[in-house]
Each structure stands twice: as C-alpha cells, then as structure tokens.
C-alpha cells in the first residue's frame, strides 16, 4: 500500500491547517526526513517531512488550500514497485469552508450514535458601541496583537517582554509583527525565567515604564506568583500610595486540550482573590482588544487571562485606536427571562450552546459574561437574578472557593428573596485535569452539564 501522507496535528489544539507550499512535485524521489511541504497552522509555519523513503505518487491537495482538517490525506508516497493505481482510497474532499466558527467541542461523547449538530449561537451587540461603529472581522489573537501595537504606538513607555515574544512572534503567535514594527528594544525575548521577568517588570513599572509581560501560559506564572502578589499587587498600599505599578501580565489561562494537569489550570479565582490586582478574562475578540487596551492604560497591575482555545475564534472588532472597555463591567451576551447563566471566558461556549438548545424547549436563558473578575460586576448579576429568579454559574476552575462561590455569596446576600431555587454551580471537577480524552471531557464544564443545571434550577425534567 502506498504511504498516506495526512494533514498532521502539529499542536494539542490544531484542528485544521493550510498547505502553504509543496516543496516536492509528483514523481520526485524522497528519503525519510526530506521536506515535503510547508504547513501553516494558526501558530506557525511548520515543515512536513516524509516519514518513509519513496516516490511522490500523488499530491492530492493543491498548495494554498486552507482549512484542511487534521488527518485528511494530502499526498501519497509510492514505495518500490508500487504504482499510482495502487492508491485505492479516494482523495478526501476538502470542505470549502467550515460552517460558522464552531465553538470548541466540549460535549461529552454522545451515548447514542446520533452525530450532534453544531449549535450556532448568536451574541447580542455590545451596548457600549455606537450603532455605526466601523467593524472588522478579527481573531482574538489578532485583536490582542492590535491592542498592544496601538498602545505601543501611542505610548513610548509601553513594551512587551516574555519568552518567545519577539523573533518567534509568540508561542501562540499573539505578538506577531510586533518585533518588526517596534524593534528589539520594545519587544524583548527573555530567557526562561518567569519569576525573574515578573520581578524585572515590576521594577520597570515602579520606575515609570508600562511593561506587558507575556507568560507563555499562566501555568508557568506560578513560578512568578510571589512577584505578582507580594510585589505588584501590594507595594502601592504598603508604600502609602508612593509607588505605582502599571504592569500587565497576560497569556493563555485554563485548559487547552489534552496537555494534562500541569498545563491545564484555570487561575481565575487565584488572582481574583487579591486586592491590588485587577483581573479580566475576555471571551470575544472585541472584548480582548478593548480590555487589553484598558489594562495597558490602567495605572494598576492588571492580569489578562486569555484562552488558547479562543485565540482563533473570529468576530467583529471595532476599528478604533480608542476602543477602551471599562474594567469591572459584565456584559449580557443573551437576554432572557427564565434563568441567569453567569460565566466567563471559554465556558461561555457551553452556556450559549445550552441557552440556544433550551430556547427550542421554551426556556429563555440570560447569559452574562463577567469579563472582569476583579472588580466583579455583581450588580449586573443581581439585577438579572431579580428578573429571572434562578442562577447557574459556570466556570472551568475548581469549585472550592471559586468564582461561582463568590457570585453565589453575593447573590444570596443581595437578592435572597428573589431566588426561586438554590443557586447551582457548574465547575471543573475537583481533580487535577486528566490526560485521557474521555476523562478530560468529563472533568470540564460542558453544554450537557449546563443544560442539566438549568433543568435543576427550573425544576424541569431533562
């Protein structure tokens, strides 16, 4: 059998790729290790090497084709004595374009063999935006990059520092193009020293600069958490207001996909706990831009908790250098009257899907994106509960002392008489995140779990 060359999965989260170019043509002899093609992922341009010696029998998919799902055959290598006719498998059809950006699948595997239909969700327009605002479609990744670039153009004291932020253009390609525009003085690759960079950033901020410290992921920021909490968050207070620390710590937070317990952790509650810090966790591309810009302009230390699985999600983003969102303001993504769902970051995928799914059954869910975790906009949540009388909180983090626990405390204190059912939390399970695909899915919030929680607070049979 000829050797099938498939679109490879080049990262834990890659679902599709683009053939940027073929470096061989049909009929070429290749040896194992020879470069066959350049594959463009959402993160990088990677060379695809031949896994075996042979002759390039057929290039199935043309160079330049995008959105080729992982595992799609893209070429065939013929070994000694094999002919083109030995290729039995019909080349897979490449979809022209996947349907609407499908939220990352977080459902549990269906018990039946029925293939779940992707749920298309709609998000309400941002009430803070003028109706005629000029918009452009961007990924979260591009929106974050633009936020930094715009602020760097505006303010000479803003610089970006971190591991692989400059020449590599970001481990997740968020800082793409910044080195080229701003140079090595302001886009700084560091050694692998999270604790050192955080402390150095704090010192630079004390001295009046505005560092944007990128952590490759927030898992690694645990090495630096002493500087974030003891130095960045507390010094303004300890100095009686003399010392200020205008710094941004940003990077992906929460579970990626199948990278196991040390690389999959949601730090929302950790940082939201700390007076002196501000914490935002944008969900949409527009919020990513508006909140990161606000974070950079804020004279206080701000944590921007991004999410790797949202980086490629596209949405309309306002075209404006002054699109600054208020830190501490939640947003109603979907208005509803029967039950309030409160969440942030990627768990909103499950909330919106659940809301869309249940609307067909006559349950009208209001979905609130907290956006900021400190300060926490409890007023928006309480106003919603006063309307719906039922509350489900959804988060990826662990349940104990989590964001949902904090929201629950605020709501029972301020809106106790409005509740028609006990508040129900959907959280990551109280366990280090497992590696196995099935176990990982079971440990994280899902659309099904959110639907179950909604049914519980509505006293419905599921």
């Amino acid at each position, binding site marked *: 059998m000829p050797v099938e060359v498939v679109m490879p999965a080049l990262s834990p989260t890659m679902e599709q790729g683009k053939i940027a170019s073929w470096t061989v043509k049909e009929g070429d002899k290749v040896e194992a290790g020879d470069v066959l093609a350049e594959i463009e992922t959402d993160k990088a341009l990677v060379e695809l090497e031949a896994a075996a010696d042979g002759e390039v029998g057929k290039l199935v998919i043309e160079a330049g084709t995008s959105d080729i799902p992982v595992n799609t055959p893209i070429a065939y290598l013929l070994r000694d004595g094999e002919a083109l006719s030995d290729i039995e498998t019909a080349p897979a059809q490449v979809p022209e374009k996947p349907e609407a950006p499908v939220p990352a699948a977080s459902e549990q595997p269906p018990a039946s063999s029925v293939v779940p239909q992707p749920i298309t969700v709609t998000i309400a327009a941002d009430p803070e935006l003028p109706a005629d605002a000029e918009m452009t479609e961007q990924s979260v990744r591009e929106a974050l990059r633009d936020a930094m670039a715009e602020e760097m153009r505006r303010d000479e004291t803003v610089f970006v520092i971190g591991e692989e932020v400059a020449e590599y253009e970001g481990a997740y390609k968020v800082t793409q193009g910044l080195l080229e525009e701003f140079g090595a003085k302001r886009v700084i690759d560091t*050694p692998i020293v999270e604790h050192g*960079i955080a402390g150095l950033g704090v*010192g630079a901020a004390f001295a009046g600069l505005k560092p944007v410290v990128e952590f490759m992921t927030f898992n690694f920021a645990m090495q630096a958490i*002493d500087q974030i909490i003891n*130095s960045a968050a507390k*010094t303004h207070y300890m100095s009686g207001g003399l010392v200020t620390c205008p710094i941004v710590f940003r990077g992906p937070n929460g579970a990626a996909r199948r990278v196991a317990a040390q690389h999959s952790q949601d730090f929302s509650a950790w940082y939201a706990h700390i007076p002196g810090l501000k914490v935002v966790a944008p969900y949409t591309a527009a919020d990513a831009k508006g909140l990161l810009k606000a974070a950079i*302009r804020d004279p206080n230390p701000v944590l921007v908790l991004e999410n790797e699985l949202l980086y490629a999600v596209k949405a309309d983003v306002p075209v404006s250098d002054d699109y600054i969102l208020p830190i501490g303001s939640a947003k109603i993504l979907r208005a509803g009257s029967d039950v309030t769902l409160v969440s942030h970051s990627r768990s909103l995928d499950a909330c919106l899907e659940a809301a869309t799914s249940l609307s067909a059954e006559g349950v009208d869910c209001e979905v609130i994106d907290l956006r900021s975790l400190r300060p926490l906009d409890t007023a928006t949540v309480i106003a919603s509960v006063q309307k719906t009388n039922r509350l489900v909180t959804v988060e990826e983090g662990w349940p104990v002392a989590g964001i949902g626990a904090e929201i629950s405390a605020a709501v029972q204190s301020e809106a106790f008489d409005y509740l028609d059912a006990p508040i129900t939390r959907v959280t990551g399970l109280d366990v280090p995140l497992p590696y196995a695909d099935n176990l990982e899915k079971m440990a994280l919030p899902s659309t099904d779990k959110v639907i179950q929680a909604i049914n519980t607070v509505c006293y419905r049979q599921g």
Partner: protein
Amino acid sequence: MGKKPVKQTQKTNKLMREEDLVSSYHDMLLIRRFEERAGQLYGLGKIGGFCHLYSGQEAVVTGIAKAKLPEDQMITAYRDHGHILACGVDPYNVMAELLGRADGVSKGKGGSMHMFDVDKHFYGGHGIVGAQVPIGTGLAFANAYKEDKNPAVSITYFGDGASNQGQVYESFNMAALWKLPVIYIIENNQYAMGTSVERASAQTDLSQRGRSFGIEGRQVDGMDVEAVYAASLEAFEHARSGKGPFILEMKTYRYSGHSMSDPAKYRKREEVKDMRQHHDPINMLKDRLIERKLMSEEEAKKIQDDIFDVIEQAANKALENGEPDSSALMTDIYVEENHAG
C-alpha cells in the same frame, strides 16, 4: 515631575573628600542612634511586628551613598532603616513609620520592612528574601530603556541569605545579557537569620556568585567606609559606562539579632564583643579622622550630642503623632486616577 536637576557625572577620585569623611561619621552615627532608639521603643512595645536593626553595617550604605549620584536608585530587603536614612529621609518620618503613625513614610501602612521614598529614589523596603533583586534589576532596565549616555544606576542590596535564592540568578543572567546599569551589593553580615554562610553556601566567596554570567565581583571590607566608597566608585563607573552589572560583597556584621525576637544563640557573645571593640565602623572612622586631624574630640562630641538631640526629637514627635485615620484603611489599594490620559 520636579525641576530637572543639573546632571552630575560619575565621581572618579577614589579617595573620599574630607567633608565626605566627616559627614560619613555623622551619617553613620545617625543610623546607629536611630537603631538604638528603635530597639528601645520595640522593647517598650511601641513598635510592633518584625524589626530588623542595621547596627554594625552602617559603613556599607554610607560609603555607597557618598559615591552615588542623586538619581541613582536604591532598593533593599527588610533591614531598610539605614538605607532610607542614607537617602536623606527625615528620621521623624522613618520613626513614625516604625510606630505605625500617620506621618510615617508609608503613612503607617508598611512598617519597619516597607519604607519607600520615590522622590529620593528609594524603592523599598521588601519583605520577601531576594524579591528585591529582580525588581532592582527592573529599575536598571528602565534606566537603560531611557537610552541616556550617563544612565542612573540601580543599587540593589541583598544579604548573604538572599544570595542563595533562585531569582537572584535569573536577575544576574538578564542583567549581564542586556548589560543593565545595576550594582549588586551583597551585605554579607555572616548570618542568614541563624545560619552562618559556611553552613548555607557551597561557595562562600559571594563576590564570585556572578562568575558564570561573566559578572565581575569584589570582596570589600564593609566595616571601612573608605574602602566601601572606593570599591563602589569602580562599580558605578563600570555600570554607568554600559559594561553591565557589578557585584560587591561587603563583609560586614550585624550587632543585633536577625530581628528583635532573635536570641542569637548561634554565635558567641565574645564574637559580637570583638567586632564592636575592634572593628566598629564608626569608631574606626572616628579614630582615623582624629588621627588625620580632620576632626577633634570636641567636634566628635558635638556631632554625637547633635545626633542624640535629633533622634530624641524625632522619636518624641513620632510618639505624639497619631495613628492613621480610619479612612486610610481602604485607600491606596489602587491608583484611582482616571487612566484615559
């Protein structure tokens, strides 16, 4: 921003000027008397929490203060009373901070370990062993970022104990890699709390701790203010001229325990007594000034009396100063200014 001061250039004469020598005697004695008074007030229960005294180490911060330029920044750990006094901050405000009073340098919110005066380029006052080292390196990063031909230098102090912390080496690496204008002052007072350098450090010559990063270092007699001054001039010249960091290990000694609650059982009384009698930085300087006829016994007595009065007045005034208003409890958590600008 205040008025831009006339830019001074690096001093080069390694011999201290006569007036600097005499004022060093004054400055060191001020720290000593301040710490003695602080120790008394701690014993009376007026000062709370942790209180780490600097007595015995005065020559280190004083010699460096004479060699530094006004805009050079200083940052240290929790044994910081001497450092903030050496930056020229009024002993009254420092004492008020120790007492947790409203006029304290940090409005009574920081205490002994968290003194700051940004106008005088003193950046604290940090309670976590070693944490000030990357922060001090960040001050140097900011100095380099300004691309000034004659940059300010960050003077980053830490002890022999902190010299074993990992973040110190992360900082050394970055400072050397990017040639940051920082001098690292290792105040080796021979004991990290109760653990002697020999019991904690595989390489006891701490001046060589930067070798694997190519950072030059010198061991200095930290009880001799003139030696400190001369060595720090070399370090300042090096850092200011773009050659990157420099390490000075100051061999010094603290007379008190690690903190006020330390019974200091890990060393013999005779050891402390010997240091006080034969190596005291203030007495050594006094003898030298008298021998060189730069100061008479009468003049020395006058300085001692003046300082006694200054410290007494500072302490008494601070004791009369009220505690912070309860309204101060929830302020200074965040910078409240609008960030639209």
